[in-house]
Every structure is written in C-alpha cells, then in structure tokens.
C-alpha cells in the first residue's frame, strides 16, 4: 500500500460520518428548519464509545460479533476501491465479486445479530433487510457488468480508475445510466428515503434501523460508523463513475473525492426533501427500476 493509497483511505474513513450529516442538513435547510449540525454523528460516536454496552440475556456471541464483522467487512471492501482515482490498495481481477461479497457478509452478520435477540421486531426487520438486498445485489452486479463492458476491465481499479475517462468518450450514455442506477442503490442500501426513513422512531416501518435496536454503547457506535462508511463506499463508487481523476495528482484526486462525496450527500438530502417514502411493497419495484437503468446501459454497450 503506497502513501497515496493510505492517505486516500484515511481521508475516506475520517470524512465518512460527515456524509449523513450533510444529507440531514440539506434536508433540514430545504424544509425550512435549522437542523442538526453536520458533524452530529461525530458527537454521537464520541458519546457512544464512552458508554457501556447492555446485552440482553437471550443473546449469544453472535450478537456481539455482528458490529465488528460489519465494520471489518466494510473496511476490507474499502481496500478494493481505487480511492485515489488510479488503483486500489488490494485490487485484483474480479474483485468486484469480492466487494459485493464483503457487503453481503457485513449485512449477514448484522442480520444474524438481530435475529439472535429473539425480538419479533428484529426478526421482521431482518426479513425485510434480506428480502430487499436480494433485489439490490443483482442490481449492483448489473451496474458492475455495464462498467466492465464500458471499460474493458474486470477489476474495480480498472472500472473506476484510469479507463473511466476513455469510457466516457465512447459510452457516455451507459456511464450516466450506471451512475444513476448506483445512486438508487445507494438510497436502497443505506436506508434513505424513499426506501427507508432514517429519522423514524416507528419500529414497525423500519427496515435497517430495527435490526440494531438492541445494540448500545460502543457496539452501536461501530454500527453507526459502519452505516456511514457504507454510504461513503457507495458514494465513492458514484464519484468514481462520474468524476474520473486518474490524471490528477494524488492530493487533488483525494480532494475531488471528498468534494464528490459531499455532492452525493447533498443529492441524498435533496431527494429526501422532495418525496415521501414509498410503500414497503413497492420497494422491490423501485430497486428493480434502478437495476433496469443499468440494464439499459448494458444494452447500449452491446448494440
């Protein structure tokens, strides 16, 4: 891992908790409120790590492992992304499958931890989380397939690194569609409106939030940080597609990444202020709609 790699990864890990803050702040401003500070999540994390964790007597080691596995898998997934705009610290051909697998592993660990509590809410949330991710995962692969076709490279370093600029010159339409599709996935995978409501307190309507209801203290901090990091990872995917930066010097490339992530945060905030959450039964249709965008991207490349 070179210095540039390490710097870019460190920057991503540090700015990640600001991303939900930017989305929330944008939403507050657009709806005429003052809103929580952008850095609220940092304060929350600081508060949570100083607290103790409470464990229900019905839980086992599975419950305690969940948050650690979640964060570990997300950091590992971050290592596969070319965050400096050129190549990834740990990239290899076909690593896109590993990337999706790591995301799935984190989710699996969290779902198991939720089920371990034996709570009917968390069981319900787990079932929803797994159901919707079974729609989201194929959509992610369709996006990756389109990128592979457009860039001719089967590793994330290639798909989101140097070849992206070339791909924009001959497959701009496909690249845009893939970018949009990834944005829909970002909303779905990170429980944002219109798929989920991160601000709700109503257990019966939650998808993602309900699985972590029993976690507290440092465990909850790991999960909240993990969620922010996941949002940042999807943001980095989108930035990689829309802002090719292989020609820039490493610091500038990282700067563009941070700027791009902030823009993604604003975009999420804008979406959340102009629409309501869709019915739970229509979530699969929404995700499938996102996947169809990527599919069009592929069709355009195959013609």
């Amino acid at each position, binding site marked *: 891992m070179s210095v540039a790699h390490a710097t870019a990864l460190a920057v991503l890990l540090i700015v990640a908790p600001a991303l939900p803050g930017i989305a929330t702040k944008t939403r507050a401003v657009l709806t005429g*409120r003052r809103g929580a500070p952008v850095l609220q999540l940092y304060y929350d994390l600081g508060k949570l790590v100083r607290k103790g964790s409470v464990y229900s007597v019905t839980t086992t080691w599975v419950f305690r492992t969940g948050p650690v596995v979640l964060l570990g898998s997300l950091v590992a997934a971050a290592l596969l992304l070319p965050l400096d705009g050129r190549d990834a610290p740990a990239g290899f051909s076909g690593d896109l499958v590993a990337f999706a697998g790591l995301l799935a592993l984190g989710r699996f660990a969290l779902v198991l931890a939720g089920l371990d509590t034996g709570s009917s809410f968390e069981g319900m949330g787990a079932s929803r989380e797994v159901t919707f991710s079974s729609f989201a995962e194929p959509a992610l692969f369709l996006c990756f397939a389109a990128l592979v076709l457009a860039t001719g490279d089967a590793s994330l370093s290639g798909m989101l690194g140097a070849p992206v600029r070339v791909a924009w010159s001959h497959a701009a339409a496909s690249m845009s569609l893939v970018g949009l599709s990834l944005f829909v996935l970002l909303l779905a995978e990170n429980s944002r409106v219109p798929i989920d409501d991160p601000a709700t307190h109503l*257990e*019966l309507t939650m998808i993602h939030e309900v699985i972590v209801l029993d976690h507290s203290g440092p465990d909850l901090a790991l999960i909240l940080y993990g969620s922010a990091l996941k949002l940042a990872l999807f943001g980095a995917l989108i930035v990689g597609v829309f802002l090719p930066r292989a020609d820039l010097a490493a610091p500038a490339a990282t700067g563009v990444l941070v700027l791009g992530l902030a823009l993604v945060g604003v975009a999420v905030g804008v979406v959340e202020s102009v629409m309501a959450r869709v019915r739970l039964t229509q979530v699969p249709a929404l995700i499938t709609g996102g996947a169809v965008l990527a599919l069009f991207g592929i069709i355009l490349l195959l013609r």
Partner: protein
Amino acid sequence: MRRFETQELRNRRAIPLRAVAVEAVDRFRETILDAVAAEWRLVTLFGMPEGDDTTRLVAVLAHDALGQLGATSTLVGEQYPALTPDCPQAHAFEREIAEQCAVMPDGHPWLKPLRRHLPDHRPTGRTALVLDPEAYSFFRIDGEEVHEVAVGPVHAGIIEPAHFRFQAHGEEVLFLEIMLGYQHRGVERLLETVPRERGMLVAESIAGDTVIGHASAYCGAIEALARSRKTPRAQAVRGIALELERLANHIGDLGAIAGDVAYQPAAAFFGRMRGECLNMLMTLSGNRYGRGLIRPGGVGFDLTATMAAAMRDLLTRLRDELKPVAMLMFETATVQGRLDGIGVVRRAQCLELGFVGPVARACDLPRDVRHDHPYGIFRFAHIPVTTAWAGDVYARVLVRWIEVQRSLEFVLEQLAALPRGEPRVSCGALQPNEFVVALEEGWRGEIAHTVITDPHGGVRRHKVTDPSFHNWMAVAVALLGNQISDFPLCNKSFNLSYAGHDL
C-alpha cells in the same frame, strides 16, 4: 322512534329523571334494537347502581338526520342478555358495564376487561366479580407461518401507552387486538365525588389534547342542570376556542401524517403552524391547550378587541400559508401513493360499529354534532359538514384538511363580529333528580357527558364518552389485510386518545 317523542330530550336540555322510561329488560333491548334498525345510533350505554343489588342500565340514542335524542333504561340484577350479538356498536359499552358494575352481559362474544380495574360502580350489596382485571386473554391465530408481534405499552416515541398485539402472516396483518386501560384514573368516580370546582379541572384533564371539547361538554351539562344561560359573547368565545383546538390538532395531524410517510416539508411547516394555533389559545387563556378558559356560566377570560385584531391578522396569514403546503403534500405522487387505499373503513362497518367524527365523515356518513344537534354558537353560525367517501387514510386526511379551512373561516367570521355581553354569568346549584346529555363535536368527534343528579342536587352519575371510545375498534378493523408496516400511518390517521378511552 315514537317511544322517545314525549321525552323532549335535546342536546343540553335537562329533563326529569322520571321521564327516562324504566322498561323490562326484553322491552329495553327491543327499544334499542328497533331504534338502531331505524338509523338511530348508540351515544352511550352505562350502568348506575340502584339500591342494594340492582343496576340501572341507561342507554342514550341519537338520530343524526332528524336531530333527535332519546333515552331509555332498565333494571338488571347480576346478569342480562347482552345487546352486542344483535347490536355490535354496544360491544365496548357492555365490556365497560361488566367491568364497572359487575353485571354480566350474557352472550357477549368478546367479554374481557376493558381497562383492568376493580368495579367502581357496583351496587353496594354485590361482591362477586364478573371480570378478573388480571386475566386478559388475547386472541391468537395458530399456524406454522403465523407470527405474533407485540407492540407497547412502552413505545419508541413520546405517545400514550397501549398494547397492540398483531397476528401477522409475513407482512400482512391477519388480526389486531388493542389492549388499553393503562391510563385509567377513575375520571367518572372523581366527577361524581369531588366538588364542582375540582370537577371542572378533572374534566379539562380527561384528554390532554381535547381540553376545550371536554370542558365545554362538562359545562354544557352543568349549566343545563343549573338553568344557567350563557351570554352570546361567551358562546362565541367558546366556539372560537373549540375551532382553534380543532385547527391546532388537525394541522398537527396533517404534519404528523406527512412525517410518518417521511415527507419532510409538510411535516416541518404544519408542525410550526400547529404551534401558532396553540399560541392563539394561549393568548386567549394563558395556556397553550386552553386550560382555564371554559368555566360554568361562560368563559374565564374575555376576548378583547386588540386580541381579536391580532388573532385575525395571524389567521389571515395562516390561511395564506396553509394552502401551498397542503397542495404540496396532496400533489406529491409519493405521498398520494402512501395514503391512497390504506386502512379502509367501510361505510357499513361504520354504521354497524357506531364510529363518530372524522372517521365516520371519511366514510360518507355526515355525523357532526355541530350540525345535527346544534348548541351554543353553532345554532346561529353553521359550519358545513365535511365528508369524503373512500374511508381510507387519504379520505381521513382530506376531511381534516377541509375542516381546517372551514374552521379557519368560521373563526375569522366570529372574530369580526363578536357579540356584546358579560363573558361569564353565575351558575348556581344543580336541579335535583334530572337527566341531561351534553354533546360536543370535539376535534376527534362526538364527546358525550351524561349527568344524572340525586335528590339533593348532587351528581349521582356522570358518564363520559370520548369519541375514542367508539373509534378504537375502527383502527382494528381498518388494519385487517393491510401491511404491518402501514400500521403507524393508519393509527396516526385516526389519532385516537388513549387517556380519553381509559378515563
């Protein structure tokens, strides 16, 4: 009904208790069943101890289209044949009678404690319990794939306590049972025993968000029994306060419903405007919920000309601000998609189970006390009855929005032409041996206070019926076959009172 015609019972008109017929049980049942078949509706049904071992059951019925009220009663011992199998709208009342009076409604299909307390209105000679307050059995559906979800009584948000038990198949709700009673304070017993000054405060605390509604109904009953006649000015101020309460709560509900579907702009703006309506009540009474305003004989505080001018300015501005936000909410496709077709209450269910207020009006049943049994200012100034037909969440939201507009216009009109007069006149001793029903259209629907006085002019029985008491069943029937994830939204579209039910 011919049997009620000679009674001359009207909203807030006291009649001698002897004018309420005491029929044999069979005849009593027949009277009620005939009346219900002829489009009468059960306003309230309660028991009153009469002697050592007898309970007098009193039923009040209303025919809304004719604007008539009627009452009948019977004497029962330890048990009587239940009305519920033939008249489902009596179901909660008969559970209440079993619990309060230790009288067994024989053949009640769903007999279990309503609030889980010991009988506080049983005849002195009766010791046996009909219902064990501790034993509550939930309905349960068996099956490999059916799962049970229990919510509450401690909730994630700052709301009142209740226990909801869902039988669900995947995301589909097969059955919902609602267990209330966590907020039982013995309101009726208090109203029957404490001095009138304290009774006034108890009435204001029956449901924290319906202070004006319950206080007005309470005063309506007391004033009728004391033959106290309010001035037109007091009536106008009460009307203004009642509609301000409706405005605040309906606007708050619109915002809360927007919040539940995660539509932020409407949630934020409606939330702010709800606050402004509450602030107007504060200007009027010094309390954001209007405590201290309604007092027997009139109102505790006068509405001065400067206050009226300030409120008119505020309301005019509010009228201009409300419309764009409501349009934004109603015209956003994702919001429509969430509200439409969810939580349907059918008109037939409404008639059968006797729902009231916006819930009934959203099913095309024009039930509105202000129109059907007019009282006070509403005899002179009419607010059109708002109805919608679909009976779903959208219809209930729409009814609220239209009522907001109409109430706002009403308040503006009243503020422009306040009658002169004393804000408050004296309200003396109650007439002995009388019977009065005071109905009030609170923002949730019909509030009924039924008072019976004893031979010394004291309160013998004070029966409070909150609209939530009728309507909780609507939440349960509306949810069948819906998605469990839509429950909070459905529940919010009814926004019933837990405290008002539990008393």
